[in-house]
């Protein structure tokens, strides 16, 4: 248990140390950079609110990658799924701006969920029934989603009042509650939804039969098959769930923040979700903690452009990449220790 917690922590420390070492090479004081990062992320209630705002989509994408991972699948497609989820929510809100208040955000949220589910179902089905690998398919579908979304934003639902590539605004009845205590940072009910999703994913994976079957397929396809489970069916379900979770990113972005779909709104939330899931050991609680860390890195780094001479906000990508690298080598150690022959024990 202690080792399980220690490894991700060591990976974070190693990644941060390497990344800050890079800033030292650039001629900055690493301690100074670290303090700017920490202040930028947690310095005021507004800063902390922005950290939570960036963490929210990462909880969704982290859960998305984790659920697929438990079924033995790699969901590199969260980026495309969240793009279409956000687009769907924005499209509903733009096409029926007059829908009444309590119903409107629910309908738009369901649209985001459904769009994600559909976009996840495609690689799930392709893997289960055509045998083509989900990694390549999800990568390709990310680009297809980006193309479709930019088509809709530039042609079908173009915002006439703006030069930016974005859809026209959704009706005001769609906007969801923002918490007031964060000094104007757009922390909305989407955060509550993300935490609820984390709890539901935990219940699903460890307290339901279907969740057990899903993990069984992930651990040993042949054993699952021998137990009468159809691995193909489970894989399709897992990718639908993964897609739906990623699609819900649209709730926070569209209903809780922008009020429209903006092309390129996501700073690679889908890819950072891979790091979040891995660092969180694919456990919902770990995902929440890791999402908070990566959200803090993203927010903290935003101040670097102004507050240092030579370090830019892109440092957050470098730090995230280095943490991901450290944890990837490490994820393997545990994989190996699990694979090492030892007596069969009861499922945790």
């Amino acid at each position, binding site marked *: 248990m202690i080792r399980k917690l220690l490894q991700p922590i060591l990976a974070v420390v190693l990644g941060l140390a390497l990344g800050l070492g890079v800033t030292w090479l*650039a001629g900055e004081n690493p301690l100074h950079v670290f303090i700017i990062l920490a202040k930028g992320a947690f310095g005021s209630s507004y800063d902390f609110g922005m950290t939570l705002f960036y963490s929210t989509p990462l909880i969704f994408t982290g859960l998305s990658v984790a659920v697929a991972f438990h079924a033995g699948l790699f969901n590199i497609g969260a980026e495309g799924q969240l793009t279409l989820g956000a687009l769907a929510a924005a499209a509903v809100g733009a096409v029926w701006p007059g829908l009444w208040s309590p119903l409107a955000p629910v309908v738009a949220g369901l649209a985001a969920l459904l769009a994600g589910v559909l976009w996840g179902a495609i690689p799930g089905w392709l893997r289960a029934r055509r045998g083509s690998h989900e*990694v390549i398919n999800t990568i390709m579908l990310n680009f297809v989603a980006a193309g479709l979304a930019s088509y809709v934003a530039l042609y079908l639902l173009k915002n006439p009042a703006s030069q930016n590539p974005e859809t026209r605004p959704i009706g005001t009845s769609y906007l969801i509650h923002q918490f007031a205590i964060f000094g104007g940072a757009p922390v909305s009910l989407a955060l509550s939804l993300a935490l609820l999703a984390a709890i539901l994913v935990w219940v699903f994976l460890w307290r339901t039969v279907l969740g057990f079957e899903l993990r069984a397929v992930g651990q040993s396809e042949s054993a699952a098959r021998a137990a009468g489970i159809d691995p193909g069916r489970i894989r399709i379900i897992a990718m639908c769930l993964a897609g739906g979770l990623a699609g819900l990113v649209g709730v926070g972005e569209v209903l809780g923040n922008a009020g429209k779909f903006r092309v390129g709104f996501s700073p690679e939330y889908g890819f950072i979700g891979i790091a979040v899931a891995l660092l969180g050991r694919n456990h919902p609680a770990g995902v929440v903690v890791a999402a908070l860390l990566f959200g803090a890195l993203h927010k903290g780094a935003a101040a670097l452009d102004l507050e240092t001479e030579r370090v830019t906000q892109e440092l957050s*990508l470098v730090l995230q990449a280095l943490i*991901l*690298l450290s944890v*990837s*080598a490490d*994820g393997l150690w545990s994989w190996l220790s699990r694979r090492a022959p030892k007596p069969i024990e009861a499922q945790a």
Partner: protein
Amino acid sequence: MILQLLASTLRVSTPLIFAALGGMFSERSGVINIALEGLMLIGAFGAAVGAYVTHSPWLGSAAGMSAGLLLAALYGLFVIRWRANQIVAGTAINMLALGLTPFLCKILYDVTGQTPAIPLADRFQAAPLYLSWIMVALCWLWLKYTRGGLWVSFAGEHPEALDAAGIRVNRVRWAAVLASGALAGMGGASLSVFLASSFSRNMTAGRGFIALAALIFGKWKPLPTALACLLFGFAEAVQIRLQGVSLWGGKPIPVQFIQILPYLVTILVLAGFVGRSRPPKALGTPFLRA
């Protein structure tokens, strides 16, 4: 018009061909390479800086290839030496290149957006285009007729057999991954020193993934892969050509549908709807001597 389109197709295919050939070495030897995007990006950056400093596109390309090689060495260290998951490590390499390039750009030139423009005389006119097709031929010959080529294929198809023959599988894979870094770096160099006149942030914009798609579409073979690059390059050329052109009713043509075509085609080919593409058997499996 047609000739112009063909010329433009050949030009924009050049970076794709280099990168796809790079991906081919790595993947034929059994190492997945979704890091092509990042390797290209760092190569484009290295080449732009190199050409700007040395006033020579050739030295610039050498710098770009070295940058790709270095990043590929980091990738190899994690996936071959430490047997890290190749997809995770590849994603990390892409993120690293995306973050590191503007970061270095700021240190060198105090701007994050792009490197200073390289004068026309210090850029390539057509050399990378010819070179890319020479590379296609060389790679084909090398894979087919040399012992090293055979080793690479065996490392990806039957690593145990190669090991039994007394060849170190992981050494072959190391060589292949390093070669993929250098070639992808050259792909990036042909972007920044041949097609454009400087490095700009995220200038690869998915071309590494298009190269990967071409590799799959070309069934991991040199000539079909190069032809797939031409096809995808053609899609890009058409799209550039049609940008802003209006059709009936004065409406602009939505280029997005041409943009997504390579990706859709790849999904269909991989699923066996159009032909069938089969990856090397040991692709993605780390080799551990028994």
